[in-house]
C-alpha cells in the first residue's frame, strides 16, 4: 500500500540509505517501536484470517462476557467479540493514518512550493491562509469541518486532510525559500530550464526529506485525530469498528464490561507511542542541533 511509497521516497535521497536502518533499529527503544508498528500492520492486513470472529456478528448468548479462552478480550453489549473488533478497527485507523497525511502532503506541498517559489501575491494569500488555519488546533478544525460534512470514510479523510494541509504548506514554503537561493537553481534559470522542470527536478527532491519526515510524524496524529472524531461520534460510524467508536460504545457500557475501552485505548497508545519514538529518532538524525537529547 502506501507503506511502499515511504521507502520509495526515502530512496530518492541516495546518500541517506543507511540512515533509515539507524533510525528504525538504532536503539533498543526504536527497535521495539519498529517491531510494534510492523506487528500492527501485519495484523491489519491479515485481519480476515486472524480475527477469531466476525466483528459485526451479534450474539444474545454472549453479552458482556469477560476475557476467557473463548473470547480473549471478552465481548461487548451486543455480544460481539472485542478482539475481532479491535483487529478490524486497526484497518480503519492505519488506513486513515496513511491516507490523510498523504493527501495533505500532496496538497500542502504544492501550495507551499508555489508560495515559496513564486512569492508575491501567491505567497501572501497562501501564507495568510496558513496562519489562519494554523491558529486552530487540529482537533478543533476537524470538529468544525465535521460539523458541516458529517461522518463517512471520505468525509473523514477530507476533514483530516484539511487539518494537516497548513503544516505541510508551511514547511514546504520555508524549505522552498531556502532552496531557491541555491546556486543550482540560479544555474538552471540561467541556462533557460523551464519553471515546471525546475520545480519538479530541482526543488521537490531537495525538500522531500523534510516532507517525508513530517508525513511519518503525522501518521500518529492522524490516528489520534480519527480516534478522537470517532469517539465524538462524527468520525467512522458504527457498526464499522474503529478504535475511537469502540471506546465510545464502551463508555456507554462501562458497567457491563470495561474491556473494549481498555483494549482499544491500549492499541491507540501503543501505535502512537511507537510512531512518535521513530519520528523523534528521525528528527534527531536529520537535525543534529535539535536539543531533545
Amino acid at each position, binding site marked *: 500500500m502506501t507503506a511502499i511509497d515511504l521507502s520509495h521516497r526515502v530512496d530518492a535521497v541516495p546518500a541517506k540509505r543507511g540512515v533509515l536502518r539507524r533510525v528504525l533499529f538504532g536503539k533498543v527503544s526504536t527497535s521495539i517501536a519498529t517491531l510494534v508498528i510492523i506487528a500492527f500492520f501485519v495484523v491489519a492486513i491479515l485481519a480476515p484470517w486472524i480475527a477469531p470472529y466476525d466483528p459485526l456478528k451479534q450474539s444474545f448468548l454472549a453479552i458482556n462476557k469477560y476475557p476467557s479462552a473463548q473470547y480473549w478480550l471478552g465481548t461487548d453489549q451486543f455480544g460481539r467479540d472485542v478482539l475481532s473488533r479491535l483487529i478490524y478497527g486497526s484497518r480503519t485507523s492505519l488506513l486513515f493514518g496513511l491516507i490523510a497525511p498523504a493527501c495533505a502532503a500532496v496538497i500542502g506541498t504544492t501550495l507551499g512550493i508555489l508560495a515559496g517559489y513564486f512569492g508575491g501575491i501567491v505567497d501572501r494569500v497562501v501564507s495568510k491562509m496558513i496562519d489562519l488555519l494554523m491558529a486552530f488546533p487540529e482537533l478543533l478544525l476537524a470538529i*468544525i469541518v465535521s460539523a458541516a460534512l458529517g461522518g463517512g470514510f471520505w468525509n473523514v479523510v477530507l476533514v483530516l486532510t484539511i487539518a494537516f494541509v497548513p503544516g505541510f504548506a508551511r514547511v514546504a514554503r520555508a524549505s522552498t525559500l531556502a532552496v531557491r537561493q541555491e546556486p543550482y537553481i540560479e544555474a538552471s534559470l540561467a541556462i533557460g530550464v523551464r519553471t515546471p522542470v525546475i520545480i519538479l527536478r530541482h526543488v521537490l527532491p531537495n525538500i522531500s526529506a523534510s516532507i517525508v519526515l513530517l508525513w511519518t510524524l503525522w501518521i*500518529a496524529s492522524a490516528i489520534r485525530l480519527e480516534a478522537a472524531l470517532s469517539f465524538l461520534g462524527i468520525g467512522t460510524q458504527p457498526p464499522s469498528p474503529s478504535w475511537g467508536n469502540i471506546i465510545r460504545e464502551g463508555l456507554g457500557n462501562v458497567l457491563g464490561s470495561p474491556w473494549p475501552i481498555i483494549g482499544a*485505548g491500549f492499541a491507540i497508545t501503543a501505535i502512537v507511542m511507537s510512531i512518535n519514538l521513530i519520528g523523534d529518532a528521525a528528527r534527531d538524525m536529520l537535525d543534529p542541533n535539535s536539543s531533545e537529547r
Partner: protein
Amino acid sequence: MGIVFSKILDAIPTLWLVMTLVFVALRILPGDPALVALGDFATPEQLKVFREQAGLDMPLWHQYLDFLWNVVTFDFGSSFITRESVAATIAHVLPYTIGLAIAATLIGVVVGIPFGVLSAVKKNKLPDQGMRVFSLIGYAIPDFYLGAVLLLVFALHLKLFPINGGGVGFADQLYHLALPAITLAVLKIAFLGRLTRTSLLEVLSKDYVRTAKAKGAPPSKVIYKHALRNALLPIVTGLGLSLLATLSGAVAVELVFNRPGLGSTLIKAIAERDYTLIQGAVVVFALMVVVVNLLVDVLYSVIDPRIGR
C-alpha cells in the same frame, strides 16, 4: 498600550475570515435543517413557516450579512430544537469549559515547569529519564481514553470522585472538576515539562549563565533568575498552544465525564443538526482561539521588550 491596540486591529480581519469560513462550512451541511427540526411528518406549510422564521428562504448574500451582524451583536437566535436562546445556552455552559481549561492549565504549569527545570538540571539522571517516559506516554495516550480509565478506576471502582455532571455550589463543582482537569493536565505536564527542559538547557549553555556561575552566584539563583527568565519566551508560546489544545481536548473530556460545557453542547448540536446552536458554539470557539493567540502576542512583548517596539 499601542501594541495591544494594533494587535487587536490585526485580529479583526482574521476574525472576519474565520466567520466567513464558518458560514460557508455550515451552508454545505447536508440535510434540510427545517425537515430535521420538524420531523418527517411536518406538512409543507409548516416547513415553509419554519424556513421563513429561521431566515432560510432568504438569498445567500442576505443570510451572510445577517450572520455577520448576528456575530457582531452576539445574537444567534434561538435553538432549532429547544427554542431556547442560543446566546443564553452558551453563556450557561461556557463557564464550565473555561473553568476546566484554567484548572488544567494551572496544574500543567505548577507541575510541568518545575518538572522540566528538574530534568534539565539533572540531565540524563533519574528525574530526567522519568520525565522522558512520562512525556512519551503523555503524548501518546488519547485524553478521552485517559479520562475513561480515570473514570473507571477512581469514580466507578474506588468511588473517590463523582461519576458525572458539573456539580452544584463551588466546593462541589471543584470536586467534579478534579478528574477532568487532571485528565487534560497530563498532556500539558508532558508538553510544558519537555519544553521547559529544552529551552532551559539551551539557555544554560549561554555565556551570561557561565558568567553568573563564575562570579559565584548560588545555583538556585542562576537557574531561577538568570536562566529561567530567558527560557520563558518559548514556554509562553507553548502555554498558548497548549491552552488551545485544551479547548479542543475539553470537547472529548466533557463527553467522557458527561460534563456541561461548550464542547459537549457543540457535539450534541451536531448530532441533532441544531443549526443555530452549532453556529453559535463554533463562533465562540473561533473567538476563543483568536483571543488566546492575541493574549500570547501581547504577553510576548511584555516578557521580551525587544519584540514589537
